[in-house]
């Protein structure tokens, strides 16, 4: 009798082991390859965080689903994509972002593009790694007004997510880190380098028009000190004397560093897809590109830490009406239609 119990136990153990092994094999069987990204020629080096979180097939699929997931918000009405709309190069055409219950955020929604090549995120560079960013809108009162535990509890009950988390990370467990990493992986894949400008540069048989070419030359003379390189930003922080956000919460880069020299300095924005991302400025001060150039032409606000490029030129960038319209023609060649069209 004793012996038979022993045998029974033994067989149960073996059975359990076998079952476990079967499950383990199933998990191993998921093929989740890294996604090859084609790195556009001349782009800055990848952010180091990218190498620790390379996009995978299912990581990106999960990230894209989460990016469009309204349950990230307290009342299930706002997703990342509510403000970062692909058709507008992942912006929203609002002066300042509009979040949950129509609450108005502090700043203008930044486009989500070529982020793998950016080393300081947001207007003030408060984040250096994309993986640390998604929590911010989730908990911010004016954005999604939720918490990561609340989000996890909503996702946990969804079969789709259990499957996708398993495909992306090997098991169905939902963790904050996995949420952040998958959203970042999706964002890493959002590369825009197929504008007319790119095609001209790549000698694909397309040429600038006369006004675009003149605009390009003017741009290089008047704008490219800051809007340099293939992303059209040197990724520095500068005070260029734009009208100041009246909110006492705003201090630009100074909000992060606490350094007086950084007061009202903002990250030089990329100009790719700029025609899709109106209005302009850190809180949408300018409705159109024409307004931006007119402002530079008329003269900017004085500040003690105003960028030397402006102070050395009488606080302005003089431009004739013709020059402005040529520059704007050129800026339109940075529009990447394939980028704003869903895949």
């Amino acid at each position, binding site marked *: 009798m004793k012996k038979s119990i022993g045998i029974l136990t033994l067989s149960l153990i073996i059975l359990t082991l076998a079952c476990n092994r079967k499950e383990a094999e199933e998990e191993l069987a998921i093929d989740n390859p890294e996604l090859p990204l084609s790195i556009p020629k001349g782009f800055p080096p990848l*952010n*180091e*965080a990218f190498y620790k979180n390379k996009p995978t097939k299912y990581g990106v699929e999960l990230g894209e689903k989460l990016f469009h997931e309204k349950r990230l918000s307290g009342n299930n009405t706002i997703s990342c994509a509510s403000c970062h709309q692909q058709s507008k190069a992942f912006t929203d055409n609002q002066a300042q972002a509009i979040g949950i219950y129509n609450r108005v955020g502090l700043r203008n929604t930044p486009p989500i593009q070529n982020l793998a090549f950016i*080393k300081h995120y947001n207007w003030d*560079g*408060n*984040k*250096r*790694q994309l993986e*640390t960013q998604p*929590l*911010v809108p989730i*908990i*911010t*009162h004016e954005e999604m007004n939720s*918490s*990561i*535990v609340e989000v*996890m509890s909503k996702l946990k009950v969804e079969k789709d997510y259990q499957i996708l988390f398993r495909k992306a990370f090997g098991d169905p467990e939902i*963790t*904050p880190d996995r949420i952040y990493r998958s959203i970042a992986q999706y964002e890493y894949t959002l590369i825009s380098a197929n504008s007319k400008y790119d095609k001209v540069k790549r000698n694909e048989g397309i040429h600038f028009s006369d006004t675009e070419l003149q605009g390009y030359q003017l741009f290089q003379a008047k704008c490219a000190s800051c809007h340099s390189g293939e992303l059209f930003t040197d990724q520095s922080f500068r005070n260029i004397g734009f009208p*100041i956000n*009246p*909110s*006492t*919460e*705003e*201090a630009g880069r*100074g*909000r*992060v*560093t*606490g*350094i*007086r020299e950084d*007061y*009202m300095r903002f990250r030089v924005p990329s100009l790719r897809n700029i025609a899709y991302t109106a209005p302009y400025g850190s809180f949408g001060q300018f409705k159109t590109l024409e307004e931006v150039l007119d402002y530079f032409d008329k003269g900017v606000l004085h500040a*003690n830490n105003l960028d030397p490029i402006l102070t050395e030129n009488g606080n302005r960038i003089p431009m004739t009406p013709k020059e402005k319209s040529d520059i704007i023609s050129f800026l339109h060649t940075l529009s990447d239609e394939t980028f704003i069209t869903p895949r």
Partner: protein
Amino acid sequence: MKNLTNILFASALSVALISCDKSDPSANNVTLHFNNTFKDKTIVLGDANSTQASINTSAAGQTHQFSELKYVISNIRLVKTDGQEIPYNINDLDKGATVIDHSKASTLSYVLSNIPAADYKQLKFGLGVKPELNTLDEVRFPNFYNTAGKNDTKMMWEWGTGYRFTKIEGFYDTDKKKLSIHTGSTLDGKRENQATYVPGVDAYRDITLTLPEVVLVGKASTVIYVKADFDKLLSGTTNTITLRSGTGPDDNATPNIHTADGMVQFVDNLGGNGKSNQSGMFSITHVKN
């Protein structure tokens, strides 16, 4: 038979031990009691029109009063007379950190339990949260996260994904202009790793207070009475501050100070500058053994 005797003896002993514990379960408790004052008088909060609210005058001659007063205490350590430091859940915000909210009497006392029986000569704690724990990790520390952020305390900086360390709302000058002083850390990462480092303000301050008499833990519950003198906010050991309203870099009365170098002046006044001054506004008035 001998066995049975042993068992009986053992049970009797354990019962005895348990009942000993029961007789004074708080013998190893040390209560930190916080008294928030302007100089020697406990602060009375109130809105702009309040006739009860305590009105203080700064060294620069500005009257000021508070309607809200909160701060975070964490990283608590007691130092024995022989110099050994006893940390109290210093890496667990749920068990070792608290939000002192002047409007809630229950938050003014924080009980440290199971402190080893010994004689103690110093109290150390942090005003704020040290950088490595200041990440708003709700999964790891749900209780502190909820205490600090989800209810009415609003002790979070969402954009910096960190906690507010001090939150003071109130009014200043005779025309009762709004005063709103928030402190918190904005730095992230390590300077050695330039690719991930966010150069920012470290508003965490480590406080060291020598006890006026030795605290004897293990005999009966003890209380350490800590005074937090908010007179120091504007009239501190490190800085004499004049409040100004507006949105310029020197206007420090409203929340833009948590953006400018002005914030550090408040932080140094409240929590010391970490160098020549390690007590800031804090002192110990007395202890109860």
